[in-house]
């Protein structure tokens, strides 16, 4: 018998723990958006699991009134894989950051994506190590001054979406911490996607890396610096959508053009196709100031998740075998009797 379904609200998903991020941290906005989103998706609360590694973002599970596991640095994708293998009915979210997910946990991120375990992986990218007090991270721009790089960082940063697509992810998206309107539908899509969904969230760390995403968040510069992706829609941006993205065939690259100028027409503008991996790869590489940065779903091309295949294969093998019998197993192969 079905119990009467009571509509849950944001409050039902907020745990009784005091949230301990710094005032103004972008994580608050993300938490709110997710707590609000939860009642809208069709997963029973008891089947929802949040798993994190270590870092500011990884405190996230403590604040969700669902099942949660705050694990060790970089390993959340592996722990989540085990959870999903053990009980595929659970709805598992992985919360990670740029240091956790791409530095110490880069190997696990690579493999969880290529393996296509059915998880939602949210990578809060603030381009800095917050919890350990401000060292530069693998996504920090060259020249970032930090306690460990007082004269500026030297190594080239990693672009999370490029990494994810390269690793074989089948769902790759990008959104912004304070933009609930954009984030909510993206997370709904990530949730609906069967397989590993990778969402990079630009997250501001007001304490150690304040304002690094202002160029894309500020009303004044936003239209020039963001490319809002919509499947099936031409890639237009800028004031009054005056600019667009064109594919330059001879150089095999994307370029910024202005329809109506220099013989460029609307027909020259690339129409976004989420299922085109090559296009997704080129989009993931776009970066200000030369290009607007894509926001939205860069790539979505589902295939059967690993956790589904594991059980399907087991069923197929079982269909050809006798049911499990331990005494039979022990007596399998060659045996002999001693009187």
């Amino acid at each position, binding site marked *: 018998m079905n119990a009467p379904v009571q509509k849950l609200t944001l409050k039902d998903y907020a745990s009784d*723990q005091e949230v301990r991020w710094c005032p103004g941290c972008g994580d608050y906005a993300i938490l709110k958006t997710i707590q609000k989103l939860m009642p809208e998706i069709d997963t029973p609360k008891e089947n929802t699991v949040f798993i994190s590694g270590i870092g500011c973002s990884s405190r996230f599970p*403590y604040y969700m009134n669902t099942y949660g596991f*705050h694990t*060790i640095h970089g390993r959340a994708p*592996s722990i989540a*894989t085990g959870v999903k293998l053990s009980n595929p009915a*659970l709805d598992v979210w992985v919360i990670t950051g740029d240091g956790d997910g791409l530095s110490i946990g880069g190997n696990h991120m690579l493999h969880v994506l290529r393996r296509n375990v059915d998880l939602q992986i949210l990578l809060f990218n603030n381009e800095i190590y917050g919890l350990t007090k401000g060292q530069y991270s693998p996504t920090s721009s060259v020249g970032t001054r930090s306690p460990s790089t007082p004269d500026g960082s030297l190594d080239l940063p990693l672009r999370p979406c490029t990494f994810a697509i390269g690793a074989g992810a089948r769902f790759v998206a990008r959104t912004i911490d304070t933009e609930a309107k954009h984030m909510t539908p993206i997370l709904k899509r990530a949730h609906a996607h069967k397989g590993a969904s990778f969402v990079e969230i630009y997250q501001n760390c007001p304490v150690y890396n304040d304002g690094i995403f202002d160029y894309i968040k500020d009303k004044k510069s936003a239209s020039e610096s963001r490319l809002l992706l919509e499947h099936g829609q031409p890639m237009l941006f800028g004031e009054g959508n005056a600019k667009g993205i064109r594919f330059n065939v001879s150089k095999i690259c994307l370029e910024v053009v202005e329809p109506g100028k220099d013989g460029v027409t609307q027909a020259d503008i690339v129409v976004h196709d989420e299922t085109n991996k090559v296009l997704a790869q080129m989009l993931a590489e776009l970066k200000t100031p030369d290009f607007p940065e894509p926001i939205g779903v860069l790539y979505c091309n589902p295939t059967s998740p690993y956790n589904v295949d594991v059980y399907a294969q087991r069923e197929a093998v079982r269909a050809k075998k006798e049911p*499990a019998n331990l005494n039979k*197993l022990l007596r399998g192969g060659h045996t002999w*009797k001693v009187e």
Partner: protein
Amino acid sequence: MSVVEKLSGIEAQSNIVSDVVVRFAGDSGDGMQLTGSNFTEATAIYGNDLATFPDFPAEIRAPAGATFGVSAFQIYFGSEDVTTAGDQVDVLVAMNPAALITNVKDLVVGGLIVVDRDAFTDKNLTRAGYKANPLEDGSLDAYKIISVDITKQVVEAVKPYGLTHKFAVRCKNMWTLGLVMWLFDRSRDSAIKGLTHKFAAKPEIADANIAALNAGHSYGETAELPVGVEVYKVPPAQVASGLYRNTTGSEALSYGLLAGGQLARLPITFASYPITPASSLLHTLAGQKEFDVVTFQAEDEIAAVCAAIGASFAGSLGITSSSGPGISLKAEAISLACATELPLIIVNTQRGGPSTGLPTKTEQSDLNQALFGRHADTTLPVIASCTPSDCFDVAIEAIRIATQFTTPVIILSDGYLANASEPWLVPDFEDYEPFPVTFPTDPEGFTPANRNPDTLARIWAKPGTPGLEHRIGGIEKSFETGDISYEPENHQKMTDVRKAKIDGIARFIPAQEVSQGRPGDKLVVLGWGSTFGAIHQGVKRCRAEGLSVAHVHVRYMWPLPANLGELLASFDSVLIPEMNTGQFVEVIRSRFLVDAQRLNKVSGQPFKISEIEKAIKAQLEAVK
């Protein structure tokens, strides 16, 4: 009486011998492991007690004829109880000069050598490091030699089957097996059946191999062999009645894990990363999909242990397996399982170390790692198996402890146990007492910090249960609520309770027994793990000579059995043989303040019985 005594004509009237050690040695491509296992099976059927030990090189395909590519398989069988693979070799089968030069030093003086004369070419002799042909220069005069042109004989024997020369020569091992089977009066039936099955898709290969086997056998019947070489009878052993099979430790351990899962009524998630010599667990379990087990080959050791922990969090039994270097990588995650008090099984099939060390050889040098090899105060139960078949019971016991006390448990096996095989009186699974896990469902009064007042086990609530939503993690938690707590007194209390839980397991494990001798004997040989066989025989032989020596073998390495200290105090002297530089001895000395003596060996090879015997006598002499 051994073959050697027989061979040297001490007892010429009889061709009955009580026990024999045979070693098959050849190139890693010569099929020595297959030859050995076929001979083992025939010997088991014959009714001898036996133990085997494969010894293969780390290189997968070393160049033919190279000494570092020699692969060997040793079997010790007899008409009394056999618990080791034997000390000295009575019969050495050497398929080439490299196999001869690397193994002849283990052959007893007067022992028998069977060689393939055709393989003693100039090239092979040089490659093995021989200046002259040992078959001709008299350097093997101390031994009996059956030198046969095996390659030529084989090619002749399999001619009717139209094999290429390359494939024909490959039947050499079966020809040799046929000859050795003749020598010990073994039946070829099981080998023939095995070959027919193995090459079911290529009947001409099966037929050729069988023909080679038969040809080797009839060579023994008809050829003129050196004086004193004839068929030896090794009468069947007196063993407990019942149904037997052969098992390696790795097989028994896999089956024990499946059994433990069933007794706990839990599905298993087995997550592992390939590493020698531990991989065979993953292979075996991956082939058991009819059981409630999911296997996962992770991207690395850390991912493997983490996936196992995730599975345990979700309500399965997470198991991971590796060898020393891999366990090092898992250490941080094992501490997470200690902090969150989740059940977890970690199997360490130890090998020679440190670092890559001797991956295919055996050692017991990860005891310290198992007991202490993590950050912070993270004591956890450690149990060690002592024979291949004992791995079955140890696996079950590990699962019982892990699930009843919500803790990670380390199982210590080693390369010897994993690969060695012995006949196993197959247990009846119905005889095992189940220990079903029940998951809480009642939200009334639930906190993730709730404990069983008797065992101190933390409550294990699984995701998917309505009303029990909760968070766990690596940050210290309140003893009362399970919420994050940085309170100083709380950390003290949580550290104390985690330790008390593990220490308390001593109340739930059997008291330490004495396996030979009795409390109050002059000397006790205190062993753990795979040294069991050698210690057992060493003590047995010394006791037969009237020496006052006992054997105590520890399974529960941590916590130690509650009566162990008192038991040890009853002996005048304690001797601890270990295949490391002395790790358990330090534990025993510091724990019980006894002046335990050490006997250590780290050559990658198990102890010989004679080494144990010698040490016992020396120790008894010293305390006189």
